[in-house]
């Protein structure tokens, strides 16, 4: 009998279905992996299991009894303890204070018993094999990896019956991962159920007994990790129900003309030795699971980060990574991740958003020419079919797709050579997606270069001339021509070698 199981779970966020009739169960004494590409539903399932999200439908059964969690505290009280990748520690507390947060031991006077807390922390850390960490050290002075270990230690201090590790090992090096695995295996042998999410397939292979694969919000299969082949697992991850139609790819010229050349780009340990080229007329897809540095790469190229190393040239001319203004003047455009907070100024009218980057071109000696603003706004409305009541209504009243078109229109006016697009079709309707695909092809045909990060594999396969897969801050693989397939993108994204899995026919 499973220790924890979820049956028939539905969960939607607004209009987006995250889980539909999804099931998951794990048994005491096993380590169970959750696998799936971006948006497949694995994180939502985990958050349902640990009480962060309440399901819209379905039941959760725990130790044979149906159970409802009203919040994460309920789940923790029941013995279901999660560790997430996003760190939840307070930088100014000590390690011991962090471990005992909210449950500090008291002296007879009611004050916090620091000595006992430190003593018990040291014992706990040593038991877990993390003895190198000083319980008196401040969290802010610890490395990212040590902080992650503290998160894990904090969870283990509660003696969980179900331990959920959601990308909890991604900040750790191999040796630290092995330390954690030793502890996790011991817990399993003591009868704890462990749910493990990782983008590293080798870790899943190394650690897990079974794996459940999610796709498009539903569980599509559970396999024994020891017997399933990589190809079987990848095949389960990529099957696809819906396909858009993409504009045709024109043939590549016999000799490529490089437009954007990036050499040995680095930024701390977040971006590592990145070298690639975007040629004239080319759409290059940036793929991989989320959080592997794709967003950082676009921001680094746009000059947002300080301390970026390496060389970037546009049309042979080296550019200075001094900030968005420099980037803009050098011929770069960035449509950022979040159009609501980064791409647009929601309370301002459509025409002011469209002309924001190119104000001097619609002004004489600093004085705005309203006729020029109206003209360029109308041009953009027509070119991108932006649907709006009038150019002077705040952009927040537009639909998501039309908002995104406004965010793009702003950059079309700068006539940039290279466009950096961060998932521009996320959360917009199918019609608007189609229009954005067509626009990207038009721009490429006109000789621009496009670097296009997408969380949707189908877009990379269907639209792009080449694909770059990022993995842990580096470019893990470059795929083009017949090799640009779902299967190859997914296997590179989870750190596997080239896949032999058949591409799913369109």
């Amino acid at each position, binding site marked *: 009998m499973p220790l924890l199981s979820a049956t028939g779970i539905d969960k939607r966020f*607004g209009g987006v279905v995250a889980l539909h009739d999804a099931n998951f169960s794990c048994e005491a004494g096993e380590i169970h992996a959750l696998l799936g590409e971006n*948006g497949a539903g694995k994180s939502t399932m985990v958050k349902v299991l640990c009480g962060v999200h309440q399901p819209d439908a379905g039941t959760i059964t725990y130790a044979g009894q149906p159970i409802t969690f009203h919040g994460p505290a309920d789940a923790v009280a029941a013995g279901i303890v999660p560790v997430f990748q996003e760190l939840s520690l307070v930088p100014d507390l000590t390690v011991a204070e962090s471990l005992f947060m909210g449950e500090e031991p008291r002296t007879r006077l009611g004050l916090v018993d620091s000595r006992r807390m430190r003593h018990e922390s040291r014992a706990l850390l040593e038991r877990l094999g993390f003895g190198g960490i000083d319980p008196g050290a401040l969290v802010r002075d610890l490395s990212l990896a040590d902080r992650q270990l503290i998160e894990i230690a904090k969870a283990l201090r509660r003696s969980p019956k179900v331990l959920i590790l959601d990308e909890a090992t991604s900040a750790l090096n191999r040796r630290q991962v092995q330390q954690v695995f030793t502890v996790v295996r011991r817990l399993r042998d003591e009868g704890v159920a462990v749910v493990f999410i990782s983008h590293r397939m080798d870790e899943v292979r190394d650690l897990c007994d079974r794996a459940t694969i999610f796709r498009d919000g539903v569980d599509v299969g559970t396999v024994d990790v020891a017997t399933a082949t990589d190809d079987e697992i990848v095949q389960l991850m990529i099957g696809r129900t819906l396909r858009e139609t993409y504009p045709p790819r024109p043939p590549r010229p016999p000799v490529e003309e490089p437009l954007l050349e990036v050499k040995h780009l680095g930024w701390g340990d977040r971006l590592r030795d990145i070298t690639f080229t975007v040629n004239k007329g080319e759409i290059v897809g940036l793929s991989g699971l*989320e959080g592997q540095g794709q967003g950082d790469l676009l921001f680094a190229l746009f000059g947002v980060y300080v301390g970026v190393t390496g060389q970037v040239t546009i049309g042979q001319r080296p550019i200075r990574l001094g900030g968005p203004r420099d980037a803009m003047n050098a011929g770069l455009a960035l449509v950022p991740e979040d159009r609501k*907070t980064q791409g*647009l*100024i929601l309370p301002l009218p459509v025409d002011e958003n469209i002309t*924001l*980057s190119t104000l001097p071109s619609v002004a004489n000696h*600093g004085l705005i020419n309203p006729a020029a603003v109206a003209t360029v706004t109308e041009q953009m409305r027509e070119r991108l079919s932006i649907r709006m009541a009038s150019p002077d209504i705040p952009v927040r*009243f537009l639909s998501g797709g039309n908002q995104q078109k406004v965010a793009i229109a702003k950059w079309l006016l700068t006539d940039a050579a290279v466009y950096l697009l961060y998932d521009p079709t996320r959360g917009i309707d199918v019609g608007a997606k189609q229009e954005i695909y067509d626009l990207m092809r038009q721009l490429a045909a006109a000789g621009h270069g496009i670097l296009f990060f997408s969380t949707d594999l189908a877009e990379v396969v269907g639209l792009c001339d080449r694909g770059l897969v990022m993995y842990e801050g580096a470019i893990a693989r470059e795929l083009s021509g017949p090799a640009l397939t779902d299967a190859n993108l997914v296997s590179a994204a989870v750190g596997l070698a080239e896949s032999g899995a058949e591409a799913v026919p369109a």
Partner: protein
Amino acid sequence: MSQMTTTPVERSPLPGSAARASWLSRNRAFLIPYLLIAILLAAAAIRAPGFVSAPNLTQQLVLASYLGVIAGGQTIVILTGGIDLSVAWNLNLSAILLTQLGAELGVLPAAIIALGVAALVGLVNGLGVAYLKIPSLVMTLGMNAVLSGVTLVYTNGSPQGEAPGFARELAVGRIGGLPWALIFWALFSAALIVLLRRTVYGKRLYAIGNNMKAAYLSGVPVRRVLVATYTIAGLCAGIGGFMLTGYSQQSYLGMGDFYVLPAIAAVVIGGTSILGGSGGYAGTIAGAITVVLLQNVLQIVGIQSAGQQILYGVIILLMLFVYGRNARVRE
């Protein structure tokens, strides 16, 4: 896990209703001070019938013009989401430089130096806020303290000289029955409104005030705009200092202290969001008139300066509360 956190596809409301709603929400705040002015005048008319006479109302407008010019600088700073607390001693120093240097160097050099110093103070504020990322509240409060010390040392505690003729004309003179102060305020207002609404600078200012990150990522020169804004605000304080010197015929220590809170009150009563990004100078004009009327009506009703101070504080806090609520609802 991208799609999970994605905002759902929105349906846009009926286009007409959206436009109407935005007109109303844009102008509601702006209409409040004019309504307040009407109420105050009605109250004054009942209590002291002589108050609502043409000469007295003109006098009230002249008083409002001093506050209005000072609040002009405060308006543009608040539009960026900042605040300028160095107004008090910046205008005081500028007034003192005008009277003291006027006696030593002549009026024109004194006026140029005084305004130059006022602008320089604003520039330094701007550099601190834009480049060193010092919160404007702290930067300008510190600047205010520095300026009060500098002024004290410079004057040895008692400012010399008297207001030059042009300052007196500007503050209390008339041409053909029309006060120069009102003519100047009209020109100042027109210039500031055009600057905010019709120039590249103005559009960038609103963009920064609404969403600094998005403005930065759109290639707006955020730092330059901020520095320019604080510099203009310093200049406004300097001009305000000239007007106040002209009004009182001389300069004295602490003359700016009574204008800091009222200027901020004029801005927020005028409907400019203290969070930045929305509002404008047209509202501040009404706000300045409201504050001046309020001061005098309160005097008529017998509430003295302590009561007035309490009222400014309450008004500002009330406006913050109202805007804070709106901001939460809008998210």
